[in-house]
């Protein structure tokens, strides 16, 4: 029985992107984040014997949420590097050396090809980021007794945070890659764009930009008084990044399917 072309293309794209030593890249990223400073900020001050089990769980959730929030900011630049590499490999490199022309000469629509490429980049970034955030939120707390106390109610919120960050990184890098059409420009340019956004987000009045916005979103989502599924207190600010990401994705898709010429 013949497979769906989109699934076939997605598998092909993932295989193409994994031609590089991806486990080593992941190991490097984890090492980078493990040795980040401020690890003990959110832990180590609790005296468990004074607390009820309910309170311990609440405190554990609070620590986990704080750590997820902290690492969503710390992971931004490593994700930007990964995003730039994968978007460049999936789009600009293939446009530049003629692989995309050969790819489009098979019976698959431009939409199928764009979506499979985009989704393969997204899946890699999202999987990496969500694994890292879940790991640091729940498992890597070696300084105190809260180690391995997992509050699963936080997991959907953390996955949503990872999805939003991956969506932003992929939409910027893919757009840059398609519009630049050159691998070298795409690689340097898309990372530079994300880096500039990070610098701007550190300035006052621009906190709606990533990665500061992810930190704020995480803090509002994981309110210490509620460990249930995210509560969007800062709703208008919360929408800015996803809307910007969606606009970039739609624009790059329209250009890819209508305007891109493969000489």
């Amino acid at each position, binding site marked *: 029985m*013949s*497979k769906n*072309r989109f699934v*076939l*293309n997605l598998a*092909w794209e993932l*295989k*193409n992107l994994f*031609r590089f030593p991806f486990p080593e890249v992941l190991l490097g990223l984890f090492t980078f984040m493990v040795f980040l400073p401020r690890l003990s900020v959110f832990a180590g001050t609790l005296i468990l014997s004074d607390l009820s089990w309910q309170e311990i769980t609440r405190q554990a959730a609070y620590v986990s949420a704080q750590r997820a929030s902290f690492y969503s900011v710390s992971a931004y630049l490593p994700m930007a590097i990964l995003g730039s590499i994968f978007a460049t490999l999936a789009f600009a490199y293939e446009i530049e*050396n*003629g*692989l995309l*022309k*050969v790819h*489009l*000469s*098979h*019976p*698959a*629509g*431009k939409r199928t090809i764009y979506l499979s490429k985009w989704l393969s980049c997204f899946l890699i970034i999202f999987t990496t980021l969500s694994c890292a955030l879940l790991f640091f939120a729940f498992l890597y707390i070696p300084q105190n007794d809260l180690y391995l106390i997992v509050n699963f109610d936080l997991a959907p919120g953390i996955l949503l945070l990872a999805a939003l960050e991956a969506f932003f990184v992929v939409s910027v890098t893919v757009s840059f890659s398609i519009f630049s059409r050159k691998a070298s420009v795409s690689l340097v340019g898309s990372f530079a764009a994300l880096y500039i956004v990070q610098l701007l987000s550190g300035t006052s009045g621009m906190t709606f930009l990533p990665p500061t916005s992810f930190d704020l979103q995480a803090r509002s989502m994981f309110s210490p008084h509620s460990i249930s599924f995210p509560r969007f207190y800062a709703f208008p600010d919360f929408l800015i990044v996803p809307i910007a990401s969606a606009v970039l994705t739609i624009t790059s898709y329209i250009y890819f399917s209508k*305007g891109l*010429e*493969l*000489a």
Partner: protein
Amino acid sequence: MARRGGRYLSLICVAKLTKRYGRIEALRGVSLTVEKGVTGLIGPNGAGKSTLIKVLLGLIKPTRGKTRVFGFDSRKQRSKIMERVGVLHEKPSLPSWVTARQYLEYVAQMKRLENVDGEVERVSEICGLVGYVDRKIGTFSAGMAQRLGLADALIGRPELVILDEPTANLDPLGRYDVLNRIRQLSEREGINFLISTHILSELERVCDNVVILNEGSVLTYGSFKELLAEDSVQRYIVKVEEPETFIQGLSKKTVSSAEVKGDSVIVGVIDEVQFMKEVNGMIRTGGITLTELKRSTVSLEDIFIEALRRKAA
């Protein structure tokens, strides 16, 4: 476009096609139809052959005009066209990190073929890839990569195979082999081919129809036999000891062209009777010493040069 019994008679129909790259006009109001069989798309480098192919495949947007393949619009119904067309691009770029088998299997699955393994074996055999299919594409020579590109184009027995410079990178034996395969596939399996090349002598062996492009315009197109019949100029190969004196002795009304090639003079003759009289006259007066005079068969190159000459006139 002509239809009979629900089937399109013309494979490709191009109407007033213009393509500009900035100030450069790569195609200038090209109109043509491509019928079934093997069609040669010929012209010098920069004539617009590859641009025409890319427009047909919907890879680039025409500035003006329309193109249809199997009756489908190249821009709007690209996927439907690609279901029925196989393509070999000029200097094809292939994923170097997979084996030839993995790549061909992917293409076969994209074309939704039932017997993927069987089809990979079939095209590998046709293109002389047996024994190489399990090697990484990155280790292939340029010639082997070209053969793999051809195998890619032939997978799934497409109704039309578009080949852009199919014999580039191949050695003489490889060129001969590939052209023979094309002829066989056309005759035995009814596959139609559109072959773009600037090496005219190659196409003579395989083509039924010819489209001649130059500087973005169609100089002429039609069946090869018709074009041969249309060619009013006869070619003669003349070997004389005094080629310059011989050429000077010919009148412009009698010959259209005369050029020295090696130890011979190739003469395009308009009026054969008058030409013979002039040659006889030069021999009698002792102006030339003739060692050989024979009629040459008209080649595709002759048709091409004649088409260029007519356009210039």
